[in-house]
């Protein structure tokens, strides 16, 4: 079991993606199928950008076993008032600054869901959000 931890700074777009980039390198070293790596790191990157865009700070915990990868992203932030709405394509509460970076079109959470096998969202308004994502390594043919 490989365990990794990264800290995410809210608002700092210069560092957004550092965790995803690092996880991508580790997965390559572990010889995971390239198509699976892309799905995993796209989901992680979207989630990382969400923390940078919306929260004050966050932590990413990564667990890689021979069968799967678990990614847990916990943030301190505004939380998501309506998860069903946030899961709809096109729904966004992102700021102008976030939109200027090429994000905030309301495609993040739906795209995360598309790329992972399991997604769980726990959120409390005014406290923060936890995203738990799992991708199994045995579905490279999907």
């Amino acid at each position: 079991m490989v365990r990794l931890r990264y800290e995410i700074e809210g608002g700092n777009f210069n560092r957004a993606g550092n965790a995803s980039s690092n996880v991508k390198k580790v997965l390559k070293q572990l010889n995971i199928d390239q198509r699976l790596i892309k799905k995993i790191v796209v989901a992680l990157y979207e989630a990382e950008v969400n923390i940078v865009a919306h929260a004050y700070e966050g932590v990413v915990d990564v667990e890689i076993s021979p069968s799967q990868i678990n990614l847990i992203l916990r943030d301190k932030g505004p939380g998501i008032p309506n998860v069903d709405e946030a899961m709809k394509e096109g729904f966004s509460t992102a700021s102008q600054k976030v939109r200027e970076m090429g994000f905030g079109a309301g495609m993040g959470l739906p795209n995360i869901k598309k790329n992972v096998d399991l997604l769980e969202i726990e959120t409390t308004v005014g406290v923060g959000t936890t995203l738990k994502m799992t991708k199994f390594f045995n579905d490279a043919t999907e």
Partner: protein
Amino acid sequence: MKLSLIVELLDARLVSGKIEGEEIERGFCSDLMSDVLTLETDRMLLVTGMANLQTIRTAEMADIHYVLLVRNKKASKEMLNLAAESGIVLIETAMSSFRCCGILYGAGLKPVY
């Protein structure tokens, strides 16, 4: 399509990476990185007017090896460093997105959708 032909057709400058390389099959044009991250295609050229570090990060995550910055947008030093580290070829042109896409499509570069 070879990168060398793309550079010639668009009067572009290579600012990171090597001119020789694999055949580029498809092109996609967007300033919206969220949109780029939904693509399942790789081996493609991203045509964009969005010149910031997240453009290169997005390309890195999405396995996009070729990025064209239009309208004289310049890659920053951080973008160049990240592109070099991630093996992403970066080119710049004075032409608009519309003009680049028209020329490349006309010359046979396939669309993603």
